[in-house]
């Protein structure tokens, strides 16, 4: 069993990403979408918490939402990958369960 978690809120506005990181299981995927992509940036107060999970969990940011916000890929925490809308669909199909955190 694996779960795709989506997080769409900035971690500096809500505790959603933090809570998600605390409740994922090894092998799960976290996809950061909409304002959630701010959680993928290196150098922030959230970066250590996010980095610590990149080994056990696949953390991915949605590229169109990064571009919209002017976030280049080289600003991301090491170990975080990006995907596009088609990749989002693949992730939803590949995992047994989706959990859209609000």
């Amino acid at each position, binding site marked *: *069993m694996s*779960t795709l978690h989506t997080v769409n809120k900035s971690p500096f506005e809500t*505790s*959603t990403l933090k*809570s998600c990181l*605390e*409740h*994922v*299981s090894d092998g*799960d995927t976290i996809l950061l979408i909409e304002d959630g992509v701010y959680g993928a940036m290196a150098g922030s107060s959230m970066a250590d918490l996010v980095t610590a999970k990149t080994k056990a969990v696949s953390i991915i940011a949605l590229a169109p939402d990064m571009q919209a916000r002017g976030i280049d890929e080289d600003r991301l925490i090491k170990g975080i990958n990006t995907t596009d809308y088609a990749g989002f669909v693949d992730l939803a199909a590949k995992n047994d*369960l*989706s*959990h*859209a*955190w*609000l």
Partner: protein
Amino acid sequence: MSETVKKFLYVNRKAPYGTIYALESLEVVLIGAAFDQDVSLAFLDDGVFQLTKGQDTKEIGVKNFSPTYRALGDYEVTKLYVEKESLAERGLSADDLQELVWEDEDDDYAEKPSIRIIDRTEMAKLMANQDVVLSF
């Protein structure tokens, strides 16, 4: 009905009156109860505030929906998991929560507690072991 029973988890992470999420979640749970699925509710983060006793909304002009949680047992929604760490972070304990019970018809209608306090690790396992997760 002979369709496959799926495990549904409703995740509640918001306090009750500042936004509409908590009430909407409760409404969806009650509507969903008609479909005879294996339903669990999870309360974590600010969601634990939904279950506190002593709520009185007279002066804020919105409906106090906290008594509605007591009806869940009659809809066979009998598993309300509350995260221990979320309670502790907010200075709460199980004593601050409403007493919610359900009647076990296989046990001479004995009243049994619906609220189960679990830790964060157990909450993560609960979330992983579902067919459908709806988060509010």
